[in-house]
């Protein structure tokens, strides 16, 4: 069976009356990969993920999922996107959202029995902590039949315990799925990534090892033993 792949090629984007944010970006992710997308604030990481997902349209370039081009990647049902901000309605309860977003009964039961979520099943989304919300959102998305997951700052505002749980969930699923993860908590992402990309000056730079990041992204000595 052919390995599934998503890629965006020659992606150019600029916000109105602004400098060019992305200029000819190429990014790809295959099934089984965890791609760390790093970069400074405002370099276009979130915009690039939104372009891949299909809710922001680039000036130039295209997105291909399993060798088929899409203007709106999400219509393929092969893509899921975890945005920076919580997208679940605050007035609904956790169990209502599980029922709504998860189709299979066995998946619902599995999620409801999760050690983090079983304590908050009857709580409203508004009453959850930031970490619990992120974990719930990620768990709900992973129950979808999608192959590729675009995670925008999944570790932001999350406690160390839930950070580990999120890392574990990603690793448990990365055999069948592909992940592109963007986050400023680079250590959390680097721990689980199989490949590192640095978004810089409008383009994607491939980073071979962590030490190379010291030239472009993190302070020197960060990865010294």
């Amino acid at each position, binding site marked *: 069976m052919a390995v599934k792949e998503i890629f965006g090629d020659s992606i150019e984007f600029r916000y109105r009356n602004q400098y060019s944010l992305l200029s000819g970006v190429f990014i790809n992710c295959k099934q089984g990969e965890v791609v760390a997308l790093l970069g400074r604030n405002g370099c276009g990481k979130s915009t690039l993920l939104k372009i891949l997902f299909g809710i922001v349209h680039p000036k130039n370039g295209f997105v291909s999922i399993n060798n088929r081009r899409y203007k709106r990647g999400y219509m393929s*049902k092969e893509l899921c996107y975890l945005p920076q901000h919580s*997208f679940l309605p605050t007035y609904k309860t956790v169990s209502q959202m599980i029922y709504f977003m998860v189709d299979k009964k066995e998946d619902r039961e599995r999620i409801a029995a999760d050690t983090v979520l079983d304590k908050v099943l009857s709580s409203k989304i508004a009453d959850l902590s930031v970490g619990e919300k992120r974990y719930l959102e990620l768990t709900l998305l992973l129950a*979808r039949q999608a192959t590729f997951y675009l995670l925008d700052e999944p570790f932001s505002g999350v406690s160390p315990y839930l950070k580990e749980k999120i890392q574990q969930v990603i690793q448990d699923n990365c055999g069948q799925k592909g992940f592109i993860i963007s986050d400023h908590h680079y250590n959390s992402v680097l721990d689980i990534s199989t490949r590192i990309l640095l978004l810089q000056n409008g383009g994607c730079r491939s980073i071979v090892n962590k030490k190379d990041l010291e030239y472009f992204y993190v302070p020197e000595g960060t990865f010294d033993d």
Partner: protein
Amino acid sequence: MKVYWYYYKQILPVNLAITTALSLVFIDLFYVVFISFGFFLSVFLHSYFYKHAKYIYCNLGFSSGQIVLGTFFINLVIGSVFIPLLWL
């Protein structure tokens, strides 16, 4: 269908409130307002106050246009069936 119905349940109370308020002035236009102006204004208000809600539908594989169109027809059917009953 579950997705359309979920969205519809969120905008229906707003639509009913707008339609009822306008009907105090234009009583004969209850049906027309319910299926047109009231519906579209409630869609606009929902998208304005719940900006991130669109990610739910996109992650389920639906575009905003599909959701609004599908819900418009549900609203049309419900309006056509139930509103005449109010006049009986």
